[in-house]
């Protein structure tokens, strides 16, 4: 398999095979654009630093043989905790890295990684946490004034504009 060279934002080169790299739709498209020159050229990825790129490639290498997402799943169950244990381990990182991974997955257009990282974040949010707990988890500041907050609490967007 031809080797693809990827360059992170901090100018580090990563070599990986095409199969793995093609997990990323972005890279796949870029390769197609490059055509014959793909063998020797280096593909710059200025939005991904080396740390993250390394992890992304790690994930992609593990998952490159995944079957296509089985959309034809009969009797799909309604749950969000169906993250594989490998992925769960892989994502045992600090929040910063997690968000970076999300951004990288978004930029590189890797649906599987995006799904699993977003699911992980969703799992951090859900579970009946109060808004303050959510804010504490993610370090977000509350920019509502108390009256505004009251107002918003009473709103029920699902029932509006019937």
């Amino acid at each position: 398999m031809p080797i693809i060279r990827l360059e992170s934002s901090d100018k580090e080169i990563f070599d990986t095979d095409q199969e793995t790299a093609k997990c990323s739709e972005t890279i796949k498209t870029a390769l197609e654009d490059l055509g014959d020159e793909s063998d020797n050229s280096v593909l710059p990825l200025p939005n991904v630093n080396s740390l993250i790129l390394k992890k992304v490639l790690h994930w992609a290498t593990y998952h490159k043989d995944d079957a296509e997402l089985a959309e034809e799943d009969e009797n799909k169950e309604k749950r969000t905790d169906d993250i594989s244990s490998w992925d769960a381990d892989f994502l045992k990182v600090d929040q910063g890295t997690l968000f970076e991974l999300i951004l990288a997955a978004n930029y590189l257009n890797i649906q599987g990684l995006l799904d699993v990282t977003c699911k992980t974040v969703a799992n951090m949010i859900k579970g009946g946490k109060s808004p303050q707990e959510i804010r504490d988890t993610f370090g977000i500041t509350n920019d509502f004034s108390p009256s505004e907050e009251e107002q918003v609490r009473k709103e029920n967007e699902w029932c509006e504009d019937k």
Partner: protein
Amino acid sequence: MDNRHKESRKIASRAASEGEGHSTKKDIKDRTGPTMDTCNHKVDSENHNCDMSSPPSSSPLCYASLNVLPDEILEFIFTYLPPYGDLEHCSIVCKRWHGIVKNLVRRSKFNLEKGLTDFRLRWEVFSPQTAAAASTSPVAFIAGRFAHSAVRQRNSMYVFGGGSTSDTTFNDLWRFDLTHMRWARPVATGTYPSPKGSASMVAWKDQLVLFGGWRYPSLHPPYQPWCLFDELHYYDLGKNRWLLRNTMPCPPPMAGHSATVHGDRMVVFGGYQITDDVNINSNDTWVLDLPEQRWWQPLFVGNTRPSARYGQIQIELGKNHLLVVGGCGGANRVYTDAWLLDMTRDVWSWKTLTVRNKRFGAVHMWCNPGCKVNNYLVVVGPSPNMPQDFQMMKQSRVPVVGGRGPPPPNPHQNMPQRGQRILMPERRLAGGLGGGLGQNRVNRIGAGGGAGGALAPQEQYLANRRAILNQHMQQAQQFMHNNNVNNNNNNSYQPRSGRLSDLHAPPAPAAAAAAPSPPSPPVRPPSLAAADGDVDAAQRLQRNLALRCRDNEPRLPKRFDEMYEDPFRMAAFNVPTRSRSASRDHNERIRRMEEKMNAIRNSRRSAPAAAQVEPQPLRAPSPKRLRCNVQSLFVCDISGILSSSEPALDWVEYKNFGVLRGAPDRLILSSLIAGNGELILFGGVHKETLTDITHHVSNSIHFLSFPRDII
């Protein structure tokens, strides 16, 4: 630099396409907070990637925070949250999140409607297995039921009562917390309602209002008629207290009626009732003033009214309008019409509505649930290309009759041979448990007797079908008689009026009333049955039974799901309550059915018989077949009803017969309520098992929603 611009543009264009509601909070100021705090978000922001411009006060090794993620990613994350409590909390976290959640809600609502018209939705199931897998400790889970009442209040679904797997009814109240996706049973105090099914339950302010219902008769003393209730209960959700209200005047005891809330009134229509000791369907309307707990009946303009019915779908269309669709008016009278009740003036009026595209409409809207989603009425029901084999349910909607009826009309059945008790043909009072039981026992043992051959799944399936066929044939016989009896308005089927105080009263009064009236018909052997051709049928039945007992039938599992399309299309076959004119048709069908049965029997005999057979899960046939026995979705556009002068219902043309991915099994008497951007289906019974001793009921919840978009 190219790529970065591309990326920004990509994100910007996506952000732009978010449309309205996208909040551009350029004015959010950084407050003092944890160091890794927010970068301001701008629409065309270039600081999406934390690699570049570091936020004002942080260290060079930038620590990305959640707010760094672009809006659509946050929205994508939020789609993984159940759209209930968690989403509400997210909405309050900060202004930006509020905007995103608002957008998400709008998009979900839009997607659901779009999915309904395009039939692009998917089902997901929440079964006991799902719950068990999702939690480490054992979870409480509701028992399966059908004909229960379900209503949604804020972020929970409340389920009350219903029929169980074994001919009893529940009176428990369960709450399904949609945020946490788990069942809980509130510890309720106060005066519990009687166990019942098909009661109407509505949510009003912080209370649930429960009215009416039926229950199976008590087993002792035997042969009692089933009960209808006129109990009115309020359940206070805050205090977890049931309150019984007895008010006069009061509607007659009823079940299968429909109710909706309009402002401070609950409007109840139709139902199966007893009035003056006669059981009839009704098309009366009763209104309950909810705060004052007082019933009254409205005056109507003119004489047009929907025909009497039960099991209809009633939808609230605003404070002064309601829509009634479908319903069942008795044997062979399943309605698919629609009526609008106008309550604006002091005197109310019914208006009949044109129904267009009926070929895409649901049929059997009396045992299948429906609910409203904005401008659409959604009904979940059997797939349209399935045989319309619902005749049997007419009487057994109030199910005693469905298998609990009087003893089989043929006293010569070879039950003694199997050590069955001989049933007294004379005792024809409804609720004859003995009759039902004995009959079923006959069927089951007949089906399970002897060691069968090592049947291929296909053959076993055929054997099962035959067993069901036979059961149904017997039911058919029985019901022909019942119907004749009923036609004479005999009291052998009188349901007792179910006043609470009467429940434990000695049955003497009712029995006394009924006793003189069980007329000669009960003792009459089938050959003298009123409908001609019954003789033929009876004899054929007898012969079939005799034949059947000689077979080596494999042991049947007690309950089997009907996952397949019946190749013999037992269409007409299920227990009909037939009027006399239809009985000839009926016999035709019996004859045809019998020929088919013979054909199977012959083909079976030629198959090798060998050793033991273990009851195999009946899942043999191809996946294509499998999918036919599932629920379909039917969607009806009701937007034009209030606005135009010629109001009409338009059924939306379905795709793939309304069968969507992951569709649940075909069940009847489930409940359907509208969730947030999704529909929630719960409970129900496999109708074919209603005549068994144990019915196959479901306790899974099925969610119907729009598949998650790939971003």
